[in-house]
């Protein structure tokens, strides 16, 4: 009896060490941003289309985040402004159709984590750090799939990515907030 339990545990050991991989749910993953508009108010916007993958292995303290954002899906609630954001003045969506984030290091802190990685906008890559307050995992009540989700925040300067139009009237500092949900593969 003890031998059979022992061998069962041995067989299971490799499985407990494997990272779980997830595919991002594009209908519940949205990068949002805010920026100062002429010092009068804060403009809110988001990107409506994303795709990507996550891996998590809390036991080993490793993980990865790989997100691709469709630049043309930018939405600030006003089409004329959205068209301007897609133009060469800002994102130049025709030439650079995607914004990407690839993590380089994930550090778990209690329920949350810090995700360091490379953000590429308009052909320029800069390191940024995403602050994740809480990673929440469970079984989705409808799909019955294992789902993990989190909110991540970061701050960056658009001028670091070569987006300098209308500085300083339109702010340089951009606050990012990513709402992410992913289902287990």
């Amino acid at each position: 009896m003890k031998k059979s339990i022992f061998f069962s545990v041995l067989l299971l050991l490799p499985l407990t060490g494997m990272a779980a991989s997830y595919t991002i749910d594009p209908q519940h993953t949205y990068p949002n941003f805010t920026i100062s508009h002429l010092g009068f108010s804060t403009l809110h916007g988001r990107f409506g289309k994303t795709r990507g993958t996550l891996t998590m292995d809390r036991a080993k303290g490793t993980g990865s985040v790989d997100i691709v954002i469709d630049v043309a899906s930018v939405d600030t609630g006003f089409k004329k402004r959205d068209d301007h954001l897609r133009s060469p003045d800002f994102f130049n969506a025709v030439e650079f159709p995607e914004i990407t984030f690839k993590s380089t290091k994930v550090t778990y802190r209690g329920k949350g984590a810090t995700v360091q990685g490379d953000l590429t906008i308009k052909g320029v890559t800069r390191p940024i750090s995403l602050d994740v307050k809480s990673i929440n995992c469970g079984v989705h009540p409808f799909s019955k799939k294992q789902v993990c989700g989190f909110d991540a925040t970061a701050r960056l300067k658009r001028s670091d990515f070569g987006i300098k139009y209308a500085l300083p009237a339109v702010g340089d500092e951009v606050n990012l907030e990513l709402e992410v949900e992913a289902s287990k593969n």
Partner: protein
Amino acid sequence: MQTLLDNPAFQAAGAPFVSTLLLALVLRRFWPAGMGLAITAGFLLAAALIAGLNLQPLTSTRKIILSSVVLPLLVLVMGFFPRMRGADLWRWLPTVLLTAAAMWILWPVLQRQEGGAVILAATPVLLYTVVLSAGFVALASRQAPVDQAFNSVAAALLTLGLASGAVSLIAASALYSQLAFAVAASCGAMIVVGMLGSKGHWDACALHAASMPVILLAGAATVYAQLPELVLLCLALVPLFVVLPLPRPSRPWPQLIVMCLWSAVPVLPALWLAWRAAGPVSF
């Protein structure tokens, strides 16, 4: 000082006008054949203020700026060789170089297309580039009195710069419009210098080379911004309207003004098309 340098009107008009004026006055004294480069220098200063001179990554906008500086220099250097100046190739060299530059600028979009879609994507811009550049070649090569030849090219360049800037501002990209206005401002300064003294030493090809930025900008705006392609058709007619056998005064300044007015005729439908495409404007 920083407030002045950040001012869009100073970047697109004041700086290129003053710098071109000063450089052209110096070149006229010491190197008349190189006077056309003063426009290129004015454009380069404006580009440095508007977009910076960092070439990495090499975006389409930076390719436009780079082409607009390198190609006129290339044309000028090749013009130093007597055999080159006599050859038909030299007259058409700016057009060939410009067309190659337009392909290079559009390449990020073209390489994503497949089969016939590449031709569809590239044809309007390349046709516009060839036709407009050929128009400037024809203007610069005309057998006409020096004053009239200078006025023809200058009027076409000034009108095209202002028109490209206006349509870009209305319907495409404020950045492109600033760069186009910078060429117009530099051309304006060249006109002032030309009117102040003899035009015997001005180089038609150098002035034609100065038209390269505005040709590249309007073409790129139809691909990277949302400028309607029909606008290119209107802008391509600007050199033609300059040479139409229409009434014009014989004195230089009134002649130049009338030529500018005639060359602005095809610009009116271009502005209307851009306005219609842009829709309501709000900040």
